[in-house]
């Protein structure tokens, strides 16, 4: 009797750990499945070039979604990220065009700093309206979404804002198109951002507080956690992530307009949820998030590379693939 009990206890320890890990691993299983599908669809798909392309271009959503992981884990939501991209990018390009600083590299450095600060401030605004104003984050950020987008339209007077100086463009280009040791820069940026985010979320006091706040606000409050501070800071982190995405976006397209980043918020949230973070808060999976962003981009890529699907049905097939990918995840984590 006592022998079997002991054995049971040991097995239980192992099992508990395993079922938790499984859920974290599930998005990667869906990813693997997609890679197989892709390889069947088009032989070019599995080439290193194509996969690098896809990873590179997933950078914007991935980085934004890393920020969204914080906001969502803490039980909030940010719908304004798409228009925040447009807004921050517009201001950054306008600043670069202004030529406020003569030396181009100094100018660029200043612009980078400026973008980061503006991103952080936009996030701060979202955070304060939500927490101090006590407005549902859905509505608060829907409001700022309109504001940031409206300001962008106004800045661009309905047109586009384009980086003018070819010199700066040349200098800045490698930030998106360059590579270090054969790895494209955006991929390195994704990895760096995610690693830092994972560290903050899993290894710092603040990260622990984020999860506590998202999981039960009252418990967090009674544990002496400054709930509003934690939530606001999550919005600021989101803003900084948006700024980082902008830093990659500007060298890629060199121009923005009032339509830049439309619906990116939906994609970012989707990436977060596919990655295993619950929309109700209390769970945050940063690595899952970038896996989710990659999955989203991959689905689009497979559609584009497959030549037998009617143009008109692509949306439908994409939708179906997302559902199937989620079902695969579920069936993996469902216990017997």
């Amino acid at each position, binding site marked *: 009797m006592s022998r079997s009990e002991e054995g049971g206890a040991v097995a239980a320890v192992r099992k508990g750990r395993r079922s938790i890990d499984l859920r974290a691993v599930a998005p990667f299983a869906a990813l693997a499945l997609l890679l197989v599908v892709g390889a069947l669809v*088009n032989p*070019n798909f599995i*080439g290193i*070039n*194509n996969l690098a*392309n896809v990873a590179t*271009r997933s950078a*914007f959503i991935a980085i934004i979604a890393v920020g969204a992981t914080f906001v969502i884990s803490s039980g909030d939501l940010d719908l304004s990220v798409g228009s925040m991209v447009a807004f921050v990018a517009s201001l950054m390009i306008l600043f670069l065009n202004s030529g406020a600083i003569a030396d181009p590299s100094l100018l660029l450095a200043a612009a980078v700093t400026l973008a980061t600060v503006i991103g952080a401030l936009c996030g701060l605004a979202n955070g304060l309206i939500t927490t101090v104003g006590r407005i549902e984050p859905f509505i608060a950020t829907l409001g700022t979404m309109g504001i940031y987008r409206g300001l962008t*339209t106004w800045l*661009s*007077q*309905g*047109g*586009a804002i*384009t980086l003018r100086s070819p010199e700066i463009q040349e200098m800045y*280009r490698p930030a998106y198109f360059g590579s270090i040791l054969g790895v494209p820069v955006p991929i390195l940026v994704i990895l760096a951002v995610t690693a830092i985010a994972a560290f903050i979320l899993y290894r710092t006091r603040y990260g622990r507080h984020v999860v506590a706040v998202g999981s039960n606000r009252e418990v967090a409050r009674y544990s002496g956690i400054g709930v509003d501070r934690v939530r606001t800071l999550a919005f600021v982190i989101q803003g900084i992530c948006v700024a980082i995405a902008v830093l990659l*976006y500007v060298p*890629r*397209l*060199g*121009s*923005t*307009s*009032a*339509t*830049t980043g*439309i*619906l990116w918020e939906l994609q970012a949230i989707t990436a977060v949820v596919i990655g295993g973070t619950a929309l109700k808060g209390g769970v945050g999976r940063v690595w899952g998030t970038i896996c989710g962003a990659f999955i989203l*981009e991959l689905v*689009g*890529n497979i559609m*584009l*590379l497959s*030549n037998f699907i009617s*143009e*008109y049905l*692509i949306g439908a097939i994409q939708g179906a693939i997302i559902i199937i990918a989620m079902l695969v995840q579920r069936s993996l984590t469902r216990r017997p």
Partner: protein
Amino acid sequence: QDAKTIGVSIPAADHGWTAGVVYHANRVAELLMKEHPGLNVIVKTSPDPASQANALQDLETQGIDALVILPTDPDPLVNAIKEVKNKGTFVSIVDRAPSVNDATVRDLYVAGNNPALGRVAGEYIAKNTPDAEVVVIRGLPIPIDQQRQDGFDEGIKGSNVKILDRQFGNWNRDDAFKVMQDYLTKYPKIDVVWCQDDDMAVGVLQAIEQAKRTDIQYVVAGAGSKDMIKKVMDGDKMIPVDVLYPPAMVGTAMELTAAAIYDQVPVHGTYTLDATLITSGNAKNYYFPDSPF
């Protein structure tokens, strides 16, 4: 004949006109493949500049000899187009020109004339109703819309035509309906509506009809959808004219491009299509009842 591949990258069908583009691109793709047995034409649609840049990369991955692109928004796509061009691919840009639009970016430019679309409408209004009070419904806040507005202002220059208001209708019928309803509330007298797009005209006409207002003399739309051309043909008083801005131009570009890569004719430079004014006189030349647009 040699095996060649043409990649066609166009905006997703987000309103009637782009739907026409998709239709014609697919139609011409089939024709071309029949005509040139070794030719493969791949048509891809994208909703926004960022994903169109992705689509270009993906087309390149598949290996293309020529690219025909109708950019969702040209300036943000210049870099991506250059990437393709620098690999020696023949590039045709359709309709929407980037601010730098020379041989470094593309080989061929088939121009839809956005400023002209606005100008022709403006000139018509200035000529027929020189003292008209006009309300304008704009599309989306992107450069081609701005070009049309500028063209329109140029067209009415020197006349007494007065613009009462401009608001965005997003090239969407439902939004245009709302904007028109509010215009009707706001202005007791409106002579002419310029809504630059046939899709939006559908909403505008319904709003006018609902309000039973008789002060509005006519509506000028644009693009050349079969429904609006039919109205012009039938002598509808509200739609006396339409400004042609044919989605079929993408087909023209594709045909020229195929000719170029099979070396039948030297095609380079700029081909500009007119923004023709469709009147009851010439309407039947532009009426394609089978098109979805």
